[in-house]
Each structure stands twice: as structure tokens, then as C-alpha cells.
């Protein structure tokens, strides 16, 4: 009879194999499943600290299109704080959730617009693997030059033409325009699950259909300080203009326990520290 080698004898190799598979699939894919009796997490993101100075840049190019209200400057303040302290444009999400409702971010097929030399919206969530649609309402040349989790560089020479690209990798994508509009900037978050929300003008957010359980909930805000600037010469005015390079994003974590059909309130306080 042939002698068989019992699998047990190679048991000692298991830790190596386990480590290897962990290294290969560092993050397990999010699994969509039906969520019944899901709970809700809602709350407000508020600013605590001194009021920040205004941050603006002169509009040095295409003022007829970029500056219809003749303000001559573009407000670049990334911390939008309402009179009650609510902070808009903060992304609030559940960290490390592996199972839950099917991907649905509203709007389902967001269009990023370039209007009056400004990206609208300024913060955009796009599902990983989803199509992102982009257009320009302006009759001048813009380009959407991405860096970070996507690296497309797309021109918009013709108004209202919609371009579309698949966003394959999860993460933050910075946008800039190379066509002389140095003040244009926006952030896209390519996300792997639907438990993400962007705070409204009053800092409010809501995450629904959350399966019961314990979670870490994170508030993410793009950097609001100017780290450094790139100096370039504006050809019309022959003056130096500066493209601001903003600081790294900041995050704040909290714990939340969600019970079936329950509503949990989670508030965040953002500050300069």
C-alpha cells in the first residue's frame, strides 16, 4: 500500500500561509447584503476654536467667465462654518465596515461641473469601480487634472460635453486646473462602501440602514491651511500668481454602538489642534 503523507505534518506551515494571504488581501472586499432593522447614526460636525481669517486669491484669468459678480477675488476658505458653528463639506463615514447595504450614494451618478471656474460640488463621493461623469459649463478651456487615487488628466475645451471615467481605486483624489485657473481645487473620495455622508451647510449628517453593532465613526476634512505655494507668471498681467497647495486632510474618530432600529447621535468637534 502507498504511504500517504498526512496533511497534519505540514501544519507548521500554516502561519506562513496565513501571513501571506493577509499580505495579499490586506483589505477584504465589502460585501453587500440585505439589512433589516438597521439603525441610524446622525449628528453634527461643529467648529470649536477661533474664527479663521479669510483666504482668497485674485482672479487673474478669464474674469468675464470666472468672475461674473465682479468680486475680483475667489474665496478659498475650505472651512465653511455657519453662524451656529456647523462645518459643511466634512465627510463622515464608518471605518472598517465589511458588510451592509448595497452601494448607493446619492446622487447615484454624480456629475462634477466646472462653473465660473469653480468645481461643483467641492467634495464628491464616488463609489469604487463606479463611473464618474464630468463636464464644464464654462466656454473656456479647463482641464481636470487628478492626482492621488486616480490619475486622469482630461480637457474640457467645449462647454457641456460630458466625459466619463471609471474610478478604480479607493482613496482621495485631488483636482486641479492647469489652464491658468490656479485657485480651482476640489476633492473626490472614491469609497468602497455606502456608509459615507457629506455634511450639509449646517454641519449635519446622517447614515442610515446601519447593521446593529459597534463601530468606529470617522470625520474627515480636507486640509484648510496653505502649506506652500507654486509661483507662476500670469501672462496677461505679467504678475506673479500663486497656486496654493493645501495641508493634509485631518480625521477625528469616535465610537458608536448601533442597536436594531435605533438612532445614535454622534457629534464631532473640529479644531485647529
Amino acid at each position, binding site marked *: 500500500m502507498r504511504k500517504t503523507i498526512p496533511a497534519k505534518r505540514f501544519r507548521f*506551515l500554516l502561519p506562513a500561509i496565513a501571513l501571506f494571504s493577509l499580505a*495579499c488581501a490586506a483589505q477584504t472586499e465589502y460585501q453587500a447584503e440585505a439589512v433589516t432593522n438597521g439603525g441610524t447614526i446622525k449628528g453634527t460636525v461643529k467648529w470649536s476654536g477661533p474664527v479663521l481669517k479669510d483666504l482668497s486669491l485674485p482672479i487673474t484669468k478669464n474674469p468675464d467667465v470666472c468672475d461674473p459678480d465682479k468680486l475680483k477675488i475667489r474665496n478659498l476658505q475650505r472651512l465653511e462654518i455657519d453662524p451656529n458653528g456647523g462645518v459643511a463639506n466634512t465627510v463622515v463615514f464608518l471605518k472598517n465596515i465589511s458588510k451592509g447595504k448595497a452601494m448607493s450614494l446619492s446622487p447615484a451618478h454624480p456629475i462634477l461641473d466646472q462653473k465660473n471656474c469653480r468645481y461643483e460640488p467641492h467634495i464628491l463621493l464616488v463609489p469604487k469601480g463606479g463611473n464618474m461623469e464630468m463636464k464644464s459649463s464654462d466656454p473656456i478651456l479647463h482641464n481636470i*487634472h487628478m492626482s492621488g487615487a486616480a490619475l486622469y488628466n*482630461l*480637457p474640457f*475645451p467645449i462647454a457641456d460635453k460630458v466625459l466619463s*471615467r471609471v474610478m478604480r481605486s479607493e482613496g482621495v483624489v485631488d483636482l486641479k486646473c492647469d*489652464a*491658468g485657473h490656479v485657485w480651482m481645487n476640489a476633492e473626490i473620495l472614491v469609497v468602497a462602501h455606502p456608509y459615507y455622508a457629506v455634511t450639509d451647510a449646517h454641519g449635519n449628517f446622517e447614515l442610515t440602514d446601519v447593521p446593529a453593532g459597534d463601530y468606529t465613526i470617522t470625520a474627515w476634512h480636507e486640509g484648510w491651511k496653505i502649506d506652500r505655494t507654486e509661483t507662476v507668471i500670469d*501672462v496677461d498681467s505679467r504678475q506673479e500668481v500663486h497656486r496654493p497647495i493645501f495641508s493634509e486632510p485631518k480625521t477625528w474618530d469616535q465610537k458608536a454602538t448601533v442597536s436594531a432600529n435605533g438612532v445614535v447621535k454622534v457629534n464631532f468637534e473640529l479644531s485647529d489642534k
Partner: protein
Amino acid sequence: MAEGAKHLVRIGAVVAAMIVLMSTPCKSQESHIGNLTGLAKRGRPIYARYCVGCHGERGDGAGENAPHVNPQFPQPRDFTVGLFKCRSTPSGSIPLDSDLFDTVGRGINTTAMPSWFPLTRQERADLVAYIKTFSPRFRDEKPDPAVIIPPETALTPASLERGKGLYEANKCGECHGKDGRGDGPSAPSLRDNKGNPIPPYDFTTGERFKCGQTDSDLARIFLTGLDGTPMPTYVDYLQGDQIWDLIHYLRTLQTNHKHKTLWARLFAD
């Protein structure tokens, strides 16, 4: 065997298995150009001999000669970012091995990057394999298929006229200037991904582009864009014959352009 020795053998086996398992998934240690296979371990000494001066030991473009490169022009490429100008793949994708191979052989016009055509094909393939080890993109991503360049159309006065219209409609002059002299209103504000000035191509200065010299090379540049620079992809705007209309027109701006030159024949290998 004593129990202690057995234990040692087991630990040794675990370590060996981990080393083998963790080093195998790296396909990026190789390059494949036609039937040539390049190996990173053979590329390493070639890199240390010819490339390290500008591109640096870590491939980050910070070699000892880098500070001496004219600051008005693109600086040595930082390979760790994995962004490459000359590709046959769409904007945002890593290049094919053959794209990097072509760049090494061709050099990059208007920059300090010379042609490494004197190296053998095998040496260039080995260099490509080694260059790929600097960026995790080559491990984590797959290149998109190459763009498809439509068949060339006839050069006619009507095609030239259409090409001029396309140059205006697509606002090429915004950077490249009304007459293609690289002096458009946005030209002085252009920066590459490292924040260094990068002047737009001046069509009147010569016939070579950064990424080649033939009409097909020019068509490819329109369709892929030059990643890491402000030049975007026009794949969504130029369909079929329009690419050739634009090329026909742009060639009229290149006063010293000669068709099918010796250079093009050299690269027919």
C-alpha cells in the same frame, strides 16, 4: 532527530516558505517586450552605470546631477510615482513595458534625457524591468490596452482647413499658442507633477516631440496625453479622421518637418 533540532528545522521551513511566498507575486521584476524578457537583477548594474546620476539610487529623480539640469525644463523623472509621459495606454494607466523600452531608446526631446539607443535591446529591456521596481503601481495595477490609432487619411487642403478648425475648437492655442509657438496665455503657468515649470511644445522649433517623431507618435500623444504634465488626453474629442486633420495642420506649423526621416527608419527595429 532530537526534539529541539526538529523544532529548529520547522522554524527554518516556515521562514523559508515565507520568503518564497512573499517574493513570488512580484511580476514587476520582469519586463516583456515582444519576445524579449528583461530582468530587474540584470537591469540594476546597468542603471547604476548609466541612469543613477540623474534619476538617483532610489529612482526618485534626485540623483547627484539632477540639480544641474536646466531648471526651466523638466527634471529627471521620479520613478517612484509611476507616472510616465510617453505611453500607448490611456491617461491614468501605467505604461506598457514596450512604452518604457521605446522611451529609453528614444530619449526625451527638449529635456536632458538622452537616447540610450547604443545599449543593446536586451540591456534596455533589463533596465525597464528594474525601473518598474521603483513604483508599487507596477505591482498593484494592470496597464489598460493600448489606444487605437485610426488609419491615416489623405493630406488635402480640406483636411488642413478642418485641422485648423479643430486646433481652435479644442483650444490647443491656450497653451501652445495661436501659431503653435508654445506661447499661449496659460503657457507660463504650467507645472509638472513635481511642481517644476514645463513649457508647452513649440511646433516651430523642430520636428521631434517628447514622445517620438512620426505622425503616429503625434496621434498617440493626442489620444493618451502626457501623464505627469498638463497635456491632457483628447481621446474624447478627436474621432477617426479628425486626428489626421489635426496632424496635417500641425505639420504645417513645423517649418522644418521632413517626412520619414533617418531617425524614423532607425527605430523601425
